[in-house]
């Protein structure tokens, strides 16, 4: 086995091994733990850069380990996994910094960071999985490793949320496994292949549709498609960095990414389209987009509002990948990154506001812009991005989804885009307005340090906010998420 072949495995191990090691660290070994965390995150980033250079040049890295008879454990870096791996690696580093600042001085940090690293390892596994079985394995470890993060605070509410979370995600896992098993029984090992691998089963319509329904239902739980979304807002009791990671990369994205894989690399978009399953899924996605936004409008708790916004936004990815069309594919896949950057920014901001000013409700932000200008600038940019105002990340997505819909004659998508933009504006802009133009009802607590909020919390917020501007403003550059998505669409989906 060459060194290249070990690279994908190394990407997973760079967070798995530190994660395991952290469990053995004493609670007070803050410095060692932080060093370990950050150096692992940076090492992973370096690995991703190495892989990225190769993948962009057309190479494919693959680690193949014997697992069960008839199916190997395969980790493979193609361009689609590269996109998700890069997003996870970057946001892991940022979120680790944030989490270190956020949890400073709180109990059970070794447990937290241990599971945190393992859930990142699982996300990496999900991203790099080369066949359906491998995907399933990491998908399940992701569920199990994020559970302790959700219940981290140990309050009755957190435990209840954790129960609900497990019930939903494990049931989803069962459905996914059943679907996987059916396909393996019918077609042997399901390696992810551009254009799909089920061509010879095209005659067995019923089986394919049943398996598709099972797979999507299993993945839809994490991707928070209605009516499987109700766990997500409840899981908001988790600490801010966890919510940020759950919503931006790890859990919700794993679901959306899985759906992308199933449609493009298991069934193949053409087969899926012929089966008629994509149109059903597109309708579900559109309904989720609108329903999530409407529900967000009704929330008074900031984090819950953001959670429903996630329900809505993630379905843009699903919508983009289910409707056939190159520009739609590009828009959907790019949104995988765009939504991640914007949403993580919003959650960081929510965390900052809660930490520094004790703000949890959307009506408590009056005048917050003067007390925490950088945080609120980040919040404003991310909000405008969510609405789809140029030149921010969300605009690029909407431009491509809209143009793509016209290209293939599915103009109804535009109506969904517009309606969702208006709803996004309705639930995000009042917050922004109050923050800048409102007057606080009582004077804010004085600054604790030199900055508006601890530097460990402020820096990640600024970085991700800048990134959500950057990926939109510089969308035409070679390494932008948009360019990557275009490359993926070119190489693997619409050759």
């Amino acid at each position, binding site marked *: 086995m060459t060194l290249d072949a070990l690279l994908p495995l190394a990407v997973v191990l760079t967070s798995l091994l530190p994660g395991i090691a952290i469990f053995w660290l004493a609670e007070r070994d803050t410095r060692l733990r932080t060093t370990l965390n950050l150096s692992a995150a940076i090492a992973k980033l370096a690995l991703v850069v190495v892989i990225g250079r190769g993948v962009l040049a057309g190479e494919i890295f693959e680690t193949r380990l014997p697992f069960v008879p008839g199916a190997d454990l395969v980790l493979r870096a193609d361009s689609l996994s590269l996109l998700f791996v890069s997003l996870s690696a970057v946001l892991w580093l940022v979120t680790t910094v944030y989490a270190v600042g956020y949890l400073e001085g709180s109990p059970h940090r070794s447990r937290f960071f241990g599971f945190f690293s393992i859930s990142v390892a699982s996300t990496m596994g999900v991203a790099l999985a080369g066949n359906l079985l491998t995907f399933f394995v990491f998908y399940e470890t992701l569920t199990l490793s994020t559970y302790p993060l959700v219940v981290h605070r140990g309050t009755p509410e957190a435990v209840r949320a954790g129960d609900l979370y497990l*019930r939903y995600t494990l049931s989803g896992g069962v459905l996914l496994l059943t679907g996987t098993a059916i396909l393996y029984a019918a077609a042997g090992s399901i390696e992810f292949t551009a254009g799909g691998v089920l061509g010879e089963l095209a005659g067995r319509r019923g089986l394919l549709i049943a398996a598709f329904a099972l797979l999507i239902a299993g993945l839809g739980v994490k991707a928070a498609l209605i*009516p499987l979304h*109700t766990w997500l807002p409840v899981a908001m009791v988790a600490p801010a960095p966890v919510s940020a990671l759950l919503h931006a990369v790890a859990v919700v994205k794993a679901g959306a990414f899985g759906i992308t894989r199933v449609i493009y690399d298991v069934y193949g978009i053409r087969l899926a389209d012929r089966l008629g399953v994509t149109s059903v899924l597109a309708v579900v996605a559109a309904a989720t987009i609108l*329903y999530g936004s*409407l*529900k967000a*409008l*009704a929330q008074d708790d900031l984090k819950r509002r953001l959670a429903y916004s996630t329900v809505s936004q993630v379905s843009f990815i699903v919508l983009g990948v289910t409707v056939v069309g190159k*520009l739609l594919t590009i828009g959907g896949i790019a949104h995988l990154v765009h939504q991640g950057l914007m949403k993580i920014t919003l959650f960081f901001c929510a965390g900052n506001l809660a930490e520094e000013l004790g703000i949890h409700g959307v009506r408590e932000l009056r005048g917050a812009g003067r007390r925490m*200008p950088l945080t609120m*600038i980040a919040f404003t940019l991310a909000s*405008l991005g969510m609405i*789809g*105002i*140029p*030149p921010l990340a969300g605009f690029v997505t*909407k*431009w*491509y989804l*809209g*143009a793509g*819909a*016209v*290209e293939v004659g599915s*103009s109804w998508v*535009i109506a969904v*885009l*517009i309606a969702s*933009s*208006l709803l996004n*504006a309705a639930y995000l*802009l009042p917050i922004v*307005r109050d923050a*800048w*133009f409102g*007057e606080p009802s009582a004077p804010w607590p004085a600054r604790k340090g030199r900055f508006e909020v601890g530097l460990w919390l402020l820096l990640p917020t600024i970085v991700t906010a800048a990134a959500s501007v950057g990926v*939109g*403003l*510089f*969308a*035409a*550059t070679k390494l932008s998420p948009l360019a990557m998505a275009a490359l993926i669409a070119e190489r693997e989906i619409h050759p």
Partner: protein
Amino acid sequence: MTANDALAVAAIVLPLAVGVAIGIRSLREAALAAAPWTALPAFVAALDGGASSVHADALLFGTTIGVEDVVTRVFLVLTATVWLASAAYARTYMAWDPRRARYWVFASITASGNIGLVLAQDVASFYLFYSVMTFGAYGLVAHVSTAEARRAGAVYLKMALLGEMLLLAAFVILVGARIDLPLHEAPRAVADSPHRDLVVGLLLAGFGVKAGAIVLHVWLPVAHPAAPTPASAALSGAMIAAGVLGWLRFLPLGIVALPGAGRICLAAGFAAAFYGVAVGVTQRDPKTVLAYSSVSQMGFVTAALGVALASPSTAPLATAAILFYVLHHALAKAALFLGTGIAMTAPTGWPRRLALAGLLVSALDLAGAPLSSGALAKISLKHLAADRGAAFGMLLSAGAIGSTLLMVRVLSLAAARRGPVARRPLPWVPWLLLLALDVALLAAPPIDRERLELLVDPASVASAAWPVLAGIAIAFAGRRLVRGLAIPPGDLLVVFERVGAWLRARITGAVRAGVRAEDALRAWLARRVAVPRRRQTLLREASRLEHGLSGFAPTGVALLVLGIVLAWASR
């Protein structure tokens, strides 16, 4: 990159950079000092007259800005001039405002967007700058922290979002498979689009929100007066014109005949022209009257657009007439806003008389009195209608009477004002300079130069004079009539707000119903799949089973032995 190119880039980047720098504590003082002059590069680029074109591959989907045609140049002149005058005025006007830093941040960003959208040469960048302007201007409308300003801000934002979304829909349909569509190909793309009528409708309505087209105008009489005076001038002078620029940039003028859309524009335009007057004369705040005057004036522009849409052969003429009209209106309206601000606060005696005299000059100009640039603008419009029968000309003259009525109203309101006198220096210089520039515009108009001699033609002097005189006469005759009338600013807005409240109640109701359904579902699931309760039952059952089985232990052992024996035997 040539010097002109650098100037074009600076025209956009400088205001933006200054706006950002105000936010940085250590740079704030320097940036605030520079803020009033950030429109200078745009102004120089406009006067300089050189062509420029800058392409940035990396930005957005590949961005191009530059000055290439006469449309860009005229709009650059008016945008830069109005923003420069507004900013120089604000330098004095806002000096005592405790929130002036916030004002300058938003003013700079809005100016950058407004200048940028003029210079943009591709669809995506146009939309980018247009949005920057739209959202930046919210900060201007909502700047004063009064209840009216808050309401104005809310109304502005809703209408602005509506406009943005209509445009987004239009643009994505338009760009289809060509993500980086250049602006100069946009009219052709509209003409060739399979969804042509839809796109034209979206464009008319989307830009119509900015340009104050009738029914979509409701935010304008509320928002323009709510902003601080220099911002009102920029909003009513430059920003309103951005809507017209959008029409000129995108609509397939001169390419295809769209008689239906043309008729709609003609009807909507004249309706706005007279409706604006009718509601405007009942207003009590001179700034609101001025806003209604803008609605009315843009009505003429819309009507001219209708002519061009309906018959492609008139398009070049109509475009030229619209360009001059918009240019004239921007400068005159900005001067009127700035002048009103001075006249309302000027002390008694000669400064007050000077203020009112200056106001009179721009009022006459806007009304189209003989030998003014307003008259020239109206001559151009009339010329366009030469072959469309007498009706068009009559309507234009009637419109001029209306303009006069509004101007008389503004002047009488400003003159009657006995408010508190400002003890601070007033921004006389920027206002008088703008006034001078507006007059000088006549000496060297960037377009329609050939019509200059028509201006001194006795026939056109007469045709310009009578509506003004008639307007003044009617105003005096009917001044008692309006005294009892009071239509709330924003007129139809009241209806819109009612409908909006009703809709919101319905949507909230639906969402609540959804929440209840979801709760019910969750409760049902909990009852059905009540794991803890079931678990208890299950465990109880299991232990009972086990208990029961334990009674059979000897039998079990016997069976096991039997099994082993049999297995051994069968080998």
